[in-house]
């Protein structure tokens, strides 16, 4: 018997994941700015308060430090909080509570207290959001010991990964690529956008399922090159590969920490070439870690230097967004370099 499925965009899939988990576990609570009655500025929590009540789905004061600090305390009590930070760009006031508290609570108390929270936050650009609605700060969190960082690229993955994150007993940062909430984006901002209803990964089971954290997915098998991507850049990368006609193996990392190193290593040893694409700024970005890992493990299999395609080391611009964005032009240039003999 196949599970019933329905067409969902990424917002609906994320909403469904929280709905499923709130139904299954009375300790799951959802909190954040505008998430209650209104249902969130992106509608991700729509309908949850009327279904589960104000004590489990509630609006919070506008203090990200308070939201995460309160979530730590709720976790210590025994709840399983799912706080929303309205934009990843607003997460910095909560850094101390995430980095020094949530991430280290299990360690510093030798397991007496844990912080089983899942921090949802829309991230990334491509929506003309300017520097305060476009950032990709995942590298800040992958650098911290004790937090997991998860980034989905499809509605199907978003639901399965979010359920796994909520069930996980460690704090998890769940960054939602808001550019692809409604449909996969191929990087051509001047062309019409596809909707998730036209994409197979928009077909999402209505009930419970999960995708194990720490498992990457090969979204396009290939022999000539390994491309490491996550979030929006999965689709931008895939489109650029097709346009260049290169038989690349595209790996959607899905979880940055813990990373699926085995899948990466096997692929690069097979292809002998590696390209990393992320939207975040370049210096000390997660691509630097990926590049180092591939070099350490696959050096003698590499036939060309590892290529990184990233955002520039500037604040995220507004009017020049598409000059900043690591889109088809930048990827095509990097493909030429990495495929050179």
């Amino acid at each position, binding site marked *: 018997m196949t599970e019933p499925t329905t067409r969902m965009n990424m917002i609906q899939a994320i909403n469904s994941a929280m709905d499923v988990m709130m139904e299954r576990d009375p300790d799951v*609570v959802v909190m954040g700015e505008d998430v209650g009655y209104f249902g969130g500025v992106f509608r991700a929590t729509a309908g949850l308060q009327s279904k589960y009540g104000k*004590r*489990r789905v509630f609006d*919070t*004061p506008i*203090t990200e*430090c*308070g939201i*995460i*600090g*309160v*979530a*730590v*305390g*709720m*976790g*210590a*009590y*025994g*709840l399983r*909080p799912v706080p929303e930070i309205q934009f990843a760009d607003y997460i910095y*006031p909560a850094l*101390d*509570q995430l980095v*020094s*508290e949530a991430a280290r*609570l*299990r*360690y*510093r*108390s*030798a*397991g*007496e*207290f*844990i912080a089983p929270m899942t921090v949802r936050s829309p991230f990334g650009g491509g929506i003309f959001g300017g520097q305060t609605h476009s950032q990709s700060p995942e590298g800040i969190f992958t650098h911290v*010991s*004790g937090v*997991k960082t998860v980034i989905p690229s499809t509605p199907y993955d978003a639901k399965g990964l979010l359920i796994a994150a909520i069930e*996980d*007993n*460690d704090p998890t940062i769940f960054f939602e690529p808001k550019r692809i909430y409604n449909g996969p984006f191929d990087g051509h901002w001047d062309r019409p956008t596809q909707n998730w209803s036209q994409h197979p990964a928009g077909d999402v089971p209505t009930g419970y399922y999960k995708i194990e954290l*720490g498992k990457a997915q090969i979204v396009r098998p290939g022999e000539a090159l390994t491309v490491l991507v996550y979030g929006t850049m999965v689709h931008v990368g895939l489109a650029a590969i097709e346009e260049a006609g290169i038989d690349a193996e595209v790996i959607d990392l899905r979880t940055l*920490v*813990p*990373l699926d*190193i*085995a899948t990466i290593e096997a692929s690069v040893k097979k292809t002998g070439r590696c390209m990393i694409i992320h939207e975040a700024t370049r210096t000390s970005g997660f691509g630097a870690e990926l590049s180092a890992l591939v070099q350490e493990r696959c050096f003698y299999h590499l036939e060309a230097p590892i290529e990184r395609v990233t955002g520039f080391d500037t604040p995220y611009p507004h009017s020049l967004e598409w000059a900043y964005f690591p889109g088809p032009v930048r990827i095509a240039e990097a493909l030429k370099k990495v495929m050179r003999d």
Partner: protein
Amino acid sequence: MADEPTRTNLPPLSLYVPEPKFRPGDAVDFTSVPIPPAGETRRPDTADAAGDFTDLAYQLVRVLDEDHAAVGPWNPRLSPDVLRKMLRAMVEVRAFDERMFRAQRQGKTSFYMKCTGEEAVSVAAATALASDDMCFPSYRQQGLLIARGWSMVDMMNQIYSNKGDRLQGKQLPIMYSVRDASFFSISGNLTTQYPQAVGWAMASAAKGDTRIAAAWCGEGSTAEGDFHSACTFASVYRAPVIFNVVNNQWAISSFSGFAGAESTTFAARAIGYGIAGLRVDGNDALAVYAATAWAAERARTNQGPTLIEHFTYRVEGHSTSDDPGQYRSAGEPSAWPLGDPVARLKAHLIAIGEWDEERHAAQDKDVAEGVKRAQKEAEANGILGHGLHQPLDTLFDGVFEEMPWHLREQQAQMIAEETASGRPWARK
């Protein structure tokens, strides 16, 4: 930049930077510190609206008067047994502090923090709270654990980071975590525990529990954003939480003026948030007890949070790494107008005929011997840096519930390094 001043009719701006009254070598005179008589401050009903007693944020709840009698509406009318129990716990805290401070000076551990002069703040609070109310302490509330009867040996094991340390040597000495005593893991980062206490209290309320939360921070760290986030959250959701601000006048070398004390009281911070605020003589165990019991009743009856400023004095340095002689007058501790909390409670018990000098001296001796015995027992588990610590492998435990590959690799590397070095680390 204009070359010529354009507002020549005004004096230039001038930046005000606070300065404490007394520096090393200065004679100390605290007569300008207003100390109202005991018994003078009114006691509102616990169901009164916070806005109806904002005057209390500028007064001082005091119970013990100059003649060591318990007076006024805040007198908690405790039985002599409870008073003696509090006195003993305070004496134990002081003896524990002395012993562990000395242990640090003897090189047996890296760090220690005393709470001398502030024993009443934690011991009386712990006595007034239910034993399962959740405490979110800062690093100077060892009195909570001792008043709750927690094992001194266990605390010392943590201080020594030895093989008996339940925290596996992962935390700086005195950063205890004791779930079984409803005592939250101490962070060391300042006031992060405040919003956490609110979250715990909100969870307790959401679940229809009866337990409340209490948090402590110093006056200096009320400047942290977390403090204000916590006050906002607590006010908004009427969380069953007690905020204790231990105003001991000094944050390392920064006097309370750098947290705003020259302009207002710390209890008055509550007013802007619309939460109940009390200002209490922190060296008066009965006043601390009464205020805590009042705030606990308020919280437990869904009347919401209370902020209590405990007006006290940090008699010793900030920690074993601090020398207060470098920045404040040596005359301050003895000149402090609110006296010593242990001496005051002792004098009260004697005044009411429930204690005497002989019994006190015998108790001092008994407590000192008990602490010494505990120390000996703890030291049998090892002292810092002498090999008797948690097994090597534990360094990587507890980063995550399950160890991912990258930590396994690093753990293997560490074990290989240590095996090659020949150092005698125990293995699991």
